[in-house]
C-alpha cells in the first residue's frame, strides 16, 4: 500500500509540474504584459518608465528564467506579489482557501451521505415508483446551473421567507449559528449539484453490481437481504462512485466560482474572477495553480480510497 501511495505521489509531482507549465504557457499568450497593465493608458507615452517597470518586475528576463524563478518561489512557499492589491499572494490565498473550504467541505459531506442512500434505495427496485421519483429529482439537479439554483434559493428563502441573508457578508469571530445562517444557502446550492451526480452514478453502478454472479452467490448462501445489499453489493458499487466524487470535487471547485459570485462570498473563486478582471497575472497564475493542485490532491485521495475498497489494485 505504501508503495502504491509513493507511486501516486511521484506521479502527482510530475502532474503539478505540467500544470504549472501549462498555466505559465497560457498566460504568456496574453497581449501586453504586466507593466502595460499597471501603467494603463500611460504606457504609450512613457517608454522609459515602461522599460524601468519591466526590469523591476523581472519581465525582461527570458521566459524560462521567469518560469524557474517563479517555480523556485513556489517551492519556498512564495507565490509572488499581486499587482492589483500590491501585497504578497500567499497569505491572501490562504485566507480565501479557508473561506472556500467552509463552503465546499460541508457540501461534499452532505452530498455523499445523502446520495449513497438515495442511490441504493433507487437501485433496489429499478423502474419502481421510488426509483422514478429519484431519477426525476436528480435529472433536475444535474440540469440546473449553480447560479440558477442559487437565485431560486435566494428568491424563496431570502426575498420571500427572509430566513437567510441573500449575501454572505462575513464578520470574523461570530459563533457557529451565525456561520450556519450565512453559509446555509451557498452550501445548499453546492450540495444540490454534487448530490445529483453522485446519486446517478451510485444508482447505475449498484444496478450493475446487483446483476453479478457474486451477488447471486451471496443471495444463495441464504444471507439476509440487508447483508447482501449493504455488504456484498455496495462495497463494489462504491468503486465508480469514488471516481465520480473526485470528479465532483473538481466540478465543485468550478461551482464555487459561480456560487461565490452569486452570494458575493469572498472565497478562492471570487479571487480568481478578481484577478481576471484586474488582469493581475501573478495573482491569476498563483490562484489557478492553487486550485488545480487542490483538485489533484483530491484525485490522489480518491485513488487511495479506491485502492482501499478494491483489493485487486493494490500492488
Amino acid at each position, binding site marked *: 500500500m505504501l508503495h502504491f501511495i509513493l507511486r501516486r505521489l511521484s506521479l502527482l509531482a510530475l*502532474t503539478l509540474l505540467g500544470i504549472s507549465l501549462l498555466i505559465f504557457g497560457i498566460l504568456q499568450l496574453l497581449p501586453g504584459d504586466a507593466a502595460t497593465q499597471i501603467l494603463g493608458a500611460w504606457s504609450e507615452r512613457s517608454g522609459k518608465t515602461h522599460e524601468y517597470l519591466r526590469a523591476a518586475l523581472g519581465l525582461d528576463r527570458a521566459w524560462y528564467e521567469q518560469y524557474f524563478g517563479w517555480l523556485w518561489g513556489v517551492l519556498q512557499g512564495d507565490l509572488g506579489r499581486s499587482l492589483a492589491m500590491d501585497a504578497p499572494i500567499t497569505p491572501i490565498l490562504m485566507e480565501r482557501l479557508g473561506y472556500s473550504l467552509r463552503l465546499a467541505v460541508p457540501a461534499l459531506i452532505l452530498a455523499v451521505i445523502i446520495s449513497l442512500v438515495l442511490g441504493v434505495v433507487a437501485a433496489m427496485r429499478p423502474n419502481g415508483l421510488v426509483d422514478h421519483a429519484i431519477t426525476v429529482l436528480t435529472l433536475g439537479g444535474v440540469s440546473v446551473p449553480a447560479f440558477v439554483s442559487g437565485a431560486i434559493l435566494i428568491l424563496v428563502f431570502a426575498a420571500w421567507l427572509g430566513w437567510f441573508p441573500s449575501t454572505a457578508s462575513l464578520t470574523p469571530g461570530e459563533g457557529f449559528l451565525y456561520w450556519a445562517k450565512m453559509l446555509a444557502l451557498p452550501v445548499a446550492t453546492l450540495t444540490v449539484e454534487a448530490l445529483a451526480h453522485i446519486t446517478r452514478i451510485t444508482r447505475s453502478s449498484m444496478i450493475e453490481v446487483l446483476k453479478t454472479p457474486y451477488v447471486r452467490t451471496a443471495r444463495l448462501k441464504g444471507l439476509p437481504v440487508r447483508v447482501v445489499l449493504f455488504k456484498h453489493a455496495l462495497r463494489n458499487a462504491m468503486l465508480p462512485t469514488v471516481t465520480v466524487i473526485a470528479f465532483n470535487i473538481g466540478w465543485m471547485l468550478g461551482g464555487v466560482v459561480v456560487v461565490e459570485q452569486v452570494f458575493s462570498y469572498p472565497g478562492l473563486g471570487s479571487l480568481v474572477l478578481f484577478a481576471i478582471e484586474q488582469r493581475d497575472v501573478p495573482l491569476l497564475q498563483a490562484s489557478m495553480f492553487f486550485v488545480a493542485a487542490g483538485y489533484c490532491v483530491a484525485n490522489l485521495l480518491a485513488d487511495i480510497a479506491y485502492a482501499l475498497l478494491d483489493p485487486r489494485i493494490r500492488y
Partner: protein
Amino acid sequence: MATHSAGPAAPHAAGERRVTPPRRIPTTLVLGGVIVGVFVVLAVIGPHITPYGFDKFHFSSRLAGPSAEFWLGTDRYGRDIFSRVIAGARLTLIMAASGTFIGVVAGVLIGLVSGYLGGWIDEVLMRLTDITMSFPSLLLALLVVAVLGANEVNAVISIGLVFTPRVARVVRSATLGVRHIQFVEAAEVRGESNPYVIFREILPNVWPPIIVETCIRMSYAVLLVVSLSYLGLGAQPPAPDWGLMISKERAFIASAPWVVLAPAAAIVALVVGVNLLGDGMREWLSARKTSDE
C-alpha cells in the same frame, strides 16, 4: 459450449433468421428529442416570430410584470423578456454545439490514435490529457477566455479545449476494449494499414459510447456557455444570452422575479432535454447491443 457468466442467460431467438426484435424507443429519448427539437426550431425561426426585437427598449414599461402585451414581462430597460428568451436559443445552441463539436472531433481522434497505437504516443497523449483534466472544467475555460478575451468565439474555443481530453479518455477506453478483439487482429494479420484499422475496423464499433458521450458533453456545454456568460466572460451585452440576462438583472429578483425566472426556465428546459436525450440514447444503444448478442 458458450459459457455464460450469470448462470442461465436469457436465451435468444434461435432457429429462424435472428432478426433484431423490434426495439422500443425509450420514452426518455422521445421526450428529450422533442424538447431539444423545440429549441432547435426556435433557434432557426426564433427571431422571425418574436413579438418585439430582442433589443427594442420600451422605456414606458420597465420591469413590467407578465401581461398580454409582454407575456413574460420586461427587464430594466423595458425589453420584452419573452422575445429575448426566444432569441437567446440560437446563440446558446450554436455556442454549445460548436464547443461540443470541437471537443468531440479532437477527442475522438486523440482517443482512437492513443488507444490503438499505444506505446509512447499513448503515454505522451495521456499525460497531456491528465494535466488538462487537472483543472476543474469551468476554471480552465475561465483561464482560456481570460487570456484570449471575453467573447463568444473564445468561449466556444475554451469549451472545445476543456472537452477534448475528457472525450479522448472515453474513446480511448472504448478503443482499448475493441483493440484486442480478434477481428482487429484478423485485420492486422492481413497487414492492413493503421488508418484502415482505426477508421474501418475500430471506429464503427465505438460509435455508441461516442454518441452517448456527445450528448453528455452537450449538456455540460450548455451549462458552461451560460455560466461563462453569467460571469461576464462569454456573450457580451446586449446579446440575449440567458446567463447574461440572469447576471445583469438579478438585482431585481425580489421585485420582479420574472427577469430571472424566465431565462432560468429556458436553461433548465434545454439542459433537461439534452440530458434526457443522452439517457435515452444510452438505454437504446445498450438494448441494441444485448439484442444483437
